[in-house]
Every structure is written in C-alpha cells, then in structure tokens.
C-alpha cells in the first residue's frame, strides 16, 4: 500500500524523465551503435579529431586553473570573519546566477578590438593598432575559468569551513608553520571537495556551448559547437549523434573515473 503510494507520487516526474530524457538520449546513442560508420567518419576526420582533442585540452586546462584559483580563494573565504565571509560568498553567487551568455559576452567587451585590454595597451603606448585577442584558445580558456571559478569557490568553501579551527591550531601548536599546515592538514582534508569541483568544472567546460561559440567561434570549434554545427547547419544528424554520444561517454567516464580516484584518495576511508 505504501509502496504503491510512493510509486504513484513519483510517477509524473518519473514519466517525464523516462519519456523526455532516457528514451530520446537512449535512441540517439543506440542509433550510432546500429550503424557505426559514423564513428569511422568522426575519427577519420582530422578536423573532428582536432576538435575532440582541443575540447579535452581546454576542459583540462580550465579545470586545473579553476582548481588552484578556487582552492586558494575558498581558503581565504572560509577563514574570513563572518561578515566578510557572507559578502564574499554573495559575490561568488552573483556571477553564478547571472548566466553563461552574459558572462561570456562580458569577455567580448574585455578582449575585443575596442575592449579595455586593447584600450589600455594603446594608452600605455605598447601598441598603436588593437590586437585581436578573440577567437583564440586563450580567450576561450580565460572566459571558461571566469565562468567556473565561482562554482569552484562555492564548492570548496563548504568543505573548507568544515575543517575545524582546532585542527589548524593543533597543527600550529605541534610546530607546523602556515605552509606546512596548509600542505599537511588543509589540503588532504579538502581532497574530496577538490574532486567534486574538478568533476563539475571538467564536465561543464567539456560540454559548454555559449562560451566557445562567442569567444572561439568557428576557429576554435569544440565538441559543443561542433554538435550544433553538425545538427543545425550541416543537418548531418548522424554525425551530430556521434558527437553527442562521445560527449556522453566522456562525461560518464570522467564521473566514474573521478569517483574511483575519490575513493582511493579519500583520506578518511579505512
């Protein structure tokens, strides 16, 4: 009776997920497996291999930079006086809620021909003619780091706040300086949070569309923009389905792989 009630209440939501997610995505993946020629076409094309490689590279670099920047910043936030801490957390939440398009677009203005960087360079006399900094791998990575650092900060602040001050003081009382305490106490205890953050940032940047589209354009095509281009410009749906499947597979591999790493690295695991 209770089991039935549970099922009845979950049914509408379950139906939506099954009908609008599992079946369509499943069908897309299965379609590429029925006729594997699509994979031949994908991996046979130097261009598409480059796109896959580039996307992995951008996602990895973004993840790495976000980890370092986010970790150090989150540590400062987690040890700030309470009033400052909430201000800093709000300052990280604000960009996160503002949306990908706005935040990527902001970098168009920063890096564009009439943007602040070029204006500053001209004003300083470094150059007469504005540089084109857009549509490079660097511009995509900068914007992606910008996109994901707040997420990393918020993920890690929670973890770092959970490290009691007592532990840091105990470490100091035993003779460990700030650097030694950071390395031997804070970092190992933050590892689970770092892994969660890394998964979020990697999968997020690996599957992103708006940022590489705005700041990388055709020249820096990544998996997301390639999927869109295949599906909506070339109307090559079989090709698009292959791209989509590769994205799903990579995402699942990363999630599973990192979960295993997390289990092995988890300092509290017995």
């Amino acid at each position, binding site marked *: 009776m209770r089991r039935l009630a549970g099922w009845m209440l979950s049914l509408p939501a379950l139906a939506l997920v099954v009908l609008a997610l599992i079946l369509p995505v499943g069908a897309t993946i299965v379609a590429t497996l029925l006729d594997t020629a699509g994979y031949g076409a994908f991996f046979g094309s130097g261009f598409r291999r480059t796109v896959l490689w580039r996307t992995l590279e951008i996602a990895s670099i973004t993840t790495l930079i976000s980890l370092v920047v986010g970790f150090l910043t989150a540590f400062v936030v987690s040890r700030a006086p309470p009033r400052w801490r909430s201000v800093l957390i709000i300052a990280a939440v604000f960009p996160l809620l503002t949306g990908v398009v706005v935040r990527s677009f902001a970098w168009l203005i920063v890096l564009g021909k009439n943007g602040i960087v070029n204006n500053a360079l001209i004003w300083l006399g470094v150059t007469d003619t504005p540089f084109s900094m857009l549509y490079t791998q660097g511009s995509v990575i900068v914007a992606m780091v910008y996109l994901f650092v707040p997420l990393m900060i918020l993920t890690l602040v929670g973890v770092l706040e959970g490290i*009691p001050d*007592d*532990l840091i*003081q*105990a*470490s*100091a*009382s*035993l*003779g*460990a*300086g*700030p650097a*030694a*305490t950071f390395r*031997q*106490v804070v970092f*190992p*205890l933050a590892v689970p949070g770092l892994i969660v953050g890394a998964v979020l940032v990697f999968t997020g940047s690996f599957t992103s569309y708006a940022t590489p589209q705005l700041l990388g354009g055709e020249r820096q095509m990544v998996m997301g923009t390639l999927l869109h281009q295949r599906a909506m410009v070339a109307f090559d749906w079989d090709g698009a389905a292959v791209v989509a499947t590769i994205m799903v597979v990579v995402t699942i591999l990363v999630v599973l792989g990192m979960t295993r790493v997390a289990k092995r690295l988890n*300092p*509290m695991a*017995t």
Partner: protein
Amino acid sequence: MTQALTLKNLTAHYGTTKVLDDLSLEVPAGELVSLLGASGCGKTTTLRLVAGFLEPTSGSITLGGKDLTRLPAHKRDIGLVFQSYALFPHLSVADNVGFGLKQRGVGAADRAKRVTAMLERVGLAHLADRLPGALSGGQRQRVALARALVIEPPLLMFDEPLSNLDARLRLEMRAEIRTLQRANGTTSVFVTHDQEEAFSISDRVAIMHAGQIMQYDTPEVLYQRPANEFVARFVGYDNLIPMQVAARDGARVTAAAQGAELILSQDDFGAIPDCFVLAARPEGLLVSDQGIPARLGLRTYLGRSYQYVCETPLGSLLATSPLSDVREPGSAVHLAPNPAQCCILPAA
C-alpha cells in the same frame, strides 16, 4: 626541561570587549596549575594567549625566561590538548602522534620508535594504524595526550580535556593525566569549569572571574581559607552572613547581625575584625538551641545528615542536623556555627 611560566599584566580584548584585565600569574616549574571558572571568565582566553592563537593588548608571557609574547604559535613549543581533541581525521593514530616530531625534522626511524614508545605508555600501541574516526572517546583523548607529550614540550596545556567523556572515564583519565604529568615533571596549565576536577588534579588553582584571578592558591587553602566572598561561594560556603563585633572578652567574641547573636572564639577563627562576613557551609550551621533564630523549611536527606532550608532574620540560610536529631519542617529552632566548616572573611 621543566620551566616556569610567567604571565605579567596581561590584558586582552575581543574587538572592544575587554576579556582579560591586567592578569598576572606564575606557574612554578613542574607544577600543574588549573584555571578554574565559569564560561566567559577568561580562562580559555588565557590559554589561547599562551598558545599564541591570540595576541594580548598589553603584558608579557615568558616561559623559562624566554619571552613568548610575540612569537608565532608554531614556534612556541607548547603541548596542547584540545577539548575536541583536534585529531587529524586523515592521519592514522601513529601519524597523529608523530606529526609534531615530523615538523621538528625527526627522521622516520627515530620518529617511529618514539611514537611507538609513547603509544605504549598510553596503552594504544595496538591501534597505531587506525584512523581517529574508528576510536572511542577515551582512546581519542589518549591519542591527543600522546601527541602533545611526545614532543617533550617544556609546557603542557589542557583545554577542558575531559568534558567530552562520561563520568567514569573522566576519573580514569584525570588520574592518568596527573600520573603522566608527575612522571615527566612537565609544567602544566589545565583549564576547567569543574571544581572537583581542578582541586583533585592540581598543585595550585587560579579561580577566575570576569577576566581576573580572584584567588591563586593550593586547593587546601582555597577550600579552607577563601580570600573573598566570590571564592567562598565558589568552594561551597553557601551562607554568607555580614556581622559586627558587639563585645570582646579575651578570645571570645560576641558578634551580632539583625538582632541575632553568635559567640565565636578567636581560637577557632584567628583574629576577628570588627566588621566581617561569616562564611558557613551548610554543615557549618547546626540546628541547635541557641544562636540565630530560624524556622525550618524544606528538609533534604543527604545520607550522613539532614539539610534544611531555613528562614531567618538574616534571610534564607542552609543548615544541617545529624541523623540522630531529625527536626520537622516548620519547627522554630536556632542555628549555631560549627567552626570547622566556617571561615571569616573581611567585610566587602
């Protein structure tokens, strides 16, 4: 290795609130001294100042002649045992204990030897590879103790180390801490709010209130000769009766208050000033035929005696009668002092 700790004129603030007011304290080398008081009295602040987690507004901290006042916490070489134990959850018991040695550059082999020896002393050698999460409260306490002792610090400090243990374990650990401290002869500071704990474990106790030390003495002196009303109340002198001397006859003194008269002997109390406060434990006022007139209220059976809440012209007082002399609530009696359980304080 044993060194004296000297605090001179320490003042400290949290923001604009003064939490420590011109506090001076000398902990003799090799002694265990407790800081005793209710929460907010400044005892933990004092400990954190000595540990280096807080900076005093003014004053100095010296350990064995070395000025610690401006030294960063990690260079002070003080063994600390935290209320929460503060064991590193990601390190094994052995690595927790070896943490301080590692910071001091002790090689792995030597470190392992010293860690094992220390774990054997606290009886935890068999748990060396466990993580703290897998230990019981008492075991964690022992690891914390071992971790602080193994670095052989000239000063050990305990921040309410027993408050997270159940009653039986608390007694056991109390004895163990005292034994280890005696054996090493390490100067120690012990912060607690538990009077019994402080008195039983310490060479001396500093009773603190509002950022100041009210009295600093051996437990015996504190118990028998409190210096002021605060300490008297703290150590169980529940009845504080302000009195004036009405007549003197040799050692015999007649003291009066609110019409009630008591005969006190200077042989029992030493010199009695003209104006004073008689501090009496409940056992210090006996139900009798003369003394302070009283009407008995609530009676409590205490095993060896009866205790009464009494209405007297001097206010509500606690008094005692032996088991052989049961009185009924409501009866009119008198209360006479039992000098062994009373003392004389200067008038406030």
